[in-house]
């Protein structure tokens, strides 16, 4: 009888098994949100290398940043993007760095405008001389190639529609040679960026979602990507270094708990499936 009852418990239908997994997932994420656990967030060397690379930009350099994430991965690359923009805008003020932003997708154009408007301190900086937002340049790899081969004819206007001939800071930018530091955020493969931007052998910064990092290792290990932010955790660490805690820091405790939950779940299921096979079921 006991074996029968034990058998009955395990016989949960596959759909219900999924529902239990989802339910536990909700709880594991919700609890650290309600009761902040204040777990330690050690700074990893990759994020401090990203900070040092940005901090190492020389006086009067030109930085070109391409946002290419879309709304869907906002919670993952958003913290890193906001922290990077804040850091670069501080350098624009301190070291007269030229900051050019453009978007690879339509949604990214809206993200850029929102970050610059709500999260960046642009007081004392003049649009068009210190920083400029070129908005969406469609075409995918064609846009990335166009920006570094023939900047003037590829860009044509900024996001408001004013021709770039009337924007002082863009007058002398012809191609990738005039740009000192490249940077982009991405939620997918970065081969197209490497194909078009790596030949210039300039520092390239990358704000990548966590799953993308292993895929970018061939480029990171070769130094084609100088430094990168490792998804949400990288964003939280960058916020901590800059001293302006934001979205990333409030998520990081829940990330730790969720990781523990998934690990425990895997071990339980693995052990359960191995001895199930031993019993030859």
């Amino acid at each position, binding site marked *: 009888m006991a074996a029968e009852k034990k058998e009955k418990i395990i016989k949960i239908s*596959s*759909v219900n098994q*999924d529902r239990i997994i989802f339910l536990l997932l909700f709880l594991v994420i919700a609890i650290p949100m309600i009761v902040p656990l204040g777990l330690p967030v050690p700074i990893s060397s990759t994020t401090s290398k990203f900070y040092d690379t940005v901090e190492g930009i020389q006086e009067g350099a030109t930085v070109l940043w391409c946002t290419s994430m*879309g709304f*869907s991965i906002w919670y993952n690359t958003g913290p890193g993007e906001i922290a990077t923009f804040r850091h670069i805008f501080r350098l624009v003020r301190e070291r007269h760095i030229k900051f050019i932003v453009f978007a690879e997708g339509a949604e990214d154009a809206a993200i850029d405008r929102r970050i610059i408007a709500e999260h960046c301190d642009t007081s004392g900086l003049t649009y068009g001389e210190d920083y400029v937002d070129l908005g969406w340049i469609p075409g*995918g*790899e064609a846009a990335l190639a166009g920006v570094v081969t023939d900047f003037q004819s590829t860009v044509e206007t900024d996001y408001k529609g004013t021709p770039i001939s009337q924007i002082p800071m863009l007058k002398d930018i012809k191609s990738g040679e005039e740009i000192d530091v490249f940077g982009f955020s991405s*939620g*997918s*493969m970065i*081969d*197209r960026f490497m194909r078009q931007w790596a030949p210039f052998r300039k520092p390239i910064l990358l704000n990548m979602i966590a*799953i*993308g990092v292993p*895929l970018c290792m061939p480029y990171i290990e070769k130094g084609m990507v100088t430094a990168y932010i490792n998804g949400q955790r990288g964003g939280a660490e960058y916020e901590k270094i800059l001293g302006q805690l934001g979205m990333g820091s409030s998520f990081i405790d829940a990330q730790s708990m969720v990781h523990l939950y998934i690990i425990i779940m895997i071990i339980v299921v693995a052990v359960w499936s191995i001895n199930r096979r031993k019993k030859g079921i």
Partner: protein
Amino acid sequence: MFVVGRRFELIVFVVICLTMYFFIERAKRGKVPEIRPLPALQALDEGVGRAVELGSSVHFTTGVSGLADAFAPQTIAGLAIMNKVAKVCGEYAIPMRYTACRSYMIPIAEDMIRSGYAFGGRPEMYSDDMVVYVGEAQTAFQAAVVSYLMDEKPAVNFMFGGVQAEAIQTLGAAAVAGCMQFAGTARMFYFPFILCLCDYSLIGEELFAAAAAVSGENIQLGTIRGQDVSKFLVLALLILGIILTTAGTALFKRLVGW
């Protein structure tokens, strides 16, 4: 005449292209290499057979990537496999549905499925609403496919092509809906999920090899042999580079930057 720093790149480019061309010509003249067996391809019939047992349908998609970006080759390979799946569905008289995410894929998919069913011996089974267009955006594609899989619960779910993040939701929903699953992509981004969720999978270039094997044309098979030989050439270059660099000379780095 040639841009400095890209001359060795041009040499490698020409050598690889000539290798490909050489083996394509050889295949045209009948010396066709034989592709090693790919489990996912052999199981296509078994998959559609499951649809016969359950008396339900088959769902196929090539994901969000279209033909206008760098992932065109993978979408094209996915279409070649779809043609074969349509042929098998024609033989077993199983209805098939293709979810399109790019409007210009609609006529292409329609032609592919129509010719597939014709080859399978049931041209009358084909109808235009087998190709369902769900809109340009990834989220709209995902929402439509997830609700379709949850409602229809097809017996088999195929996903070949330049698949992006929608792979997780599509394959996850199909797994929950209990479908048998085949998937293959050269975009490695979400590949661990294809390994976890699918019964049969094609990793990286296996997708191109399957498309070549499926279309069965000698030329496609010749291309695969050309790719294999090119890979060995690149490996030889890698080993040469290791030997030269370990021997202390910067010869290899100068050669690459020539």
